[in-house]
């Protein structure tokens, strides 16, 4: 695929992903739209261009692993896995319902394509370091992508894992920070300042890249650049907007865990160009 075509294709996939996110949360009448939408472009490029995965063989040993450390944003992963063919598309409408394979937060025992159970913030990077260490030990060329929230890095264990990944030179471990600057109680700078993000990760021995997390071209570029990094874990700081793509949700922390009503749902779908 030529670059321009690829970008067009990925942009369309991202749009489709966002409509699926809104629809599944609306169907469930519960879930977390804000952080799902902010990570949508990154997740799109991961699943539709970058990752080495086999939908028909979710446990394939040589696959790349994905850890959604900010587990509450699971609609974005659930929709991507369905679009990728890990399970039928209509499964997404069972989100958060009794008997569903799609739990309120990711469960590796129930959902094909989920590499680790998450939902308790702060765990993902430590798990990812364990996977990356194991992959290196077995000489697999699998990579481990960990998607973290920016508020999430207030959890102390994230920094324990950051030290460990650097000590063991885990260059197959990629942390992607969804830097939308919002958490439940307000902006990160109000609740507990996390800046300067890049300097923090650099000081812990990571190779840091800062990108616009909604620019498909920049996401594609950074995934090329990180392939050259050796003997250092990689941190991608993705500048994003919480609720991206739905006007009334954008940059509004109330949309962290709120569900749209019928009217809001229709507005969202219209804005995203999906069918209502």
């Amino acid at each position, binding site marked *: 695929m030529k670059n321009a075509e690829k970008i067009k294709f990925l942009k369309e996939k991202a749009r489709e992903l966002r409509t699926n996110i809104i629809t599944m949360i609306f169907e469930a009448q519960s879930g977390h739209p804000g952080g799902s939408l902010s990570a949508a472009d990154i997740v799109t490029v991961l699943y539709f261009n970058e990752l080495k995965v086999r939908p028909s063989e979710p446990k394939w040993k040589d696959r790349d692993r994905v850890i959604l450390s900010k587990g509450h944003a699971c609609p974005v992963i659930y929709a991507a896995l369905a679009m990728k063919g890990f399970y039928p598309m209509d499964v997404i409408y069972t989100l958060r319902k009794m008997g569903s394979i799609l739990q309120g937060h990711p*469960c590796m025992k129930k959902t094909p394509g989920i590499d*680790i*159970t998450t939902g308790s913030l702060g*765990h993902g990077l*430590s798990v990812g370091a364990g*996977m990356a260490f*194991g992959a290196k030990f077995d000489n697999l060329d699998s990579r481990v992508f960990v998607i973290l929230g920016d508020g999430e890095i207030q959890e102390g264990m994230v920094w324990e894992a950051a*030290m460990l990944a650097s000590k063991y030179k885990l260059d197959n471990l990629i942390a992607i920070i969804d830097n939308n600057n919002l958490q439940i109680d307000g902006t990160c700078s109000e609740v507990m300042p996390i800046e300067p993000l890049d300097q923090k990760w650099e000081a812990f021995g990571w190779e840091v890249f800062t990108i616009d997390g909604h620019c498909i071209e920049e996401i594609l570029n950074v995934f090329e650049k990180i392939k050259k990094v050796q003997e250092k874990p990689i941190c991608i700081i993705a500048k994003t907007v919480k609720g991206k793509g739905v006007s009334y949700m954008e940059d509004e922390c109330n949309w962290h865990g709120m569900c749209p009503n019928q009217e809001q749902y229709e507005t969202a779908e219209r804005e995203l160009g999906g069918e209502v």
Partner: protein
Amino acid sequence: MQKMMATRDAFGDVIVELARGNDKIFVIDCDISKSTKTTNFAKTFPERHVNVGIAEQNAATFAAGLSTMGKIPFVSTYAVFGSMRMCEQVRTSICYPNLNVKIACSHGGLTPGNDGVTHQAIEDMGIYRTIPGMTVIMPADYNATKKLVACAAEYYGPVYLRFTRDPVPVFYNEKENFEIGKGKLIKEGRDISIIAIGDLLHEALSATEKLEKRGVSVELIDMHTLKPLDVELVEKTLHKTGRIITVEDHNIFNGLGSAVADVVATQGKGIMRIVGLKDTYAESGDYHQLLEKYEMDSSYILKMAEELLSKKEVLRKKDSA
């Protein structure tokens, strides 16, 4: 004189032996390998040894990730940290997804005596007993520890193992076999049952000897696996003697006594006493002196036995039939 050995030493010895035959075994240390006795493992298998530093939560969660790659990580720390500092990590990232991680802890109960309360683990087994999917084991001596650590390595799933810092008598023969979830009936008896776990088996043994000298027939059980509890064995001994004393180096709440009481309550007969730390903190001091002061030693078990034996009501199923 009986040979005395700390069960943490047994862990340090057996983990090296096991790792020779099983290349999936890893040890995750938290800066205290000298004390948890894993330095020999680190020297013998440096590529399978990870020292995360003083970061227990990270140790457990890293181990979770490593186990998804088909490895069998043993996280090695002290029981207070292995149960409480990393509790939520173990619950959500290990037990909920049922990952094959072992939490192997020295300094169980009052065995780190002189270190004081900060290092004495008195709640740990109760905490892990509450978490679905977790197996909880405390072996009684050096040889039992070697066998039960081997069982834990063979078994798929999360296991909490608890060892002693201080030496305890070596009771078992090194050929003795153990099975997770199967208590050991050490001695059969008719009048009263004593069920012990871990280091206090030796106190239960000496109480048993004294009682036998007085003509009391004691049934003695080593309940090395707190969870899953050997319910069948508890029911059997209850119906035989009707009187049970449980003995544990742990708070009296939610440990062996509570687990056995859960079973007794379903049977509608029987009476029991729980010997353990009476919902209090201990203090710094010699391990044996602490057991005496906090009424967890053989003479207190004896006192409890006398109390139960004085109860007129006979609660045996078979005798009354």
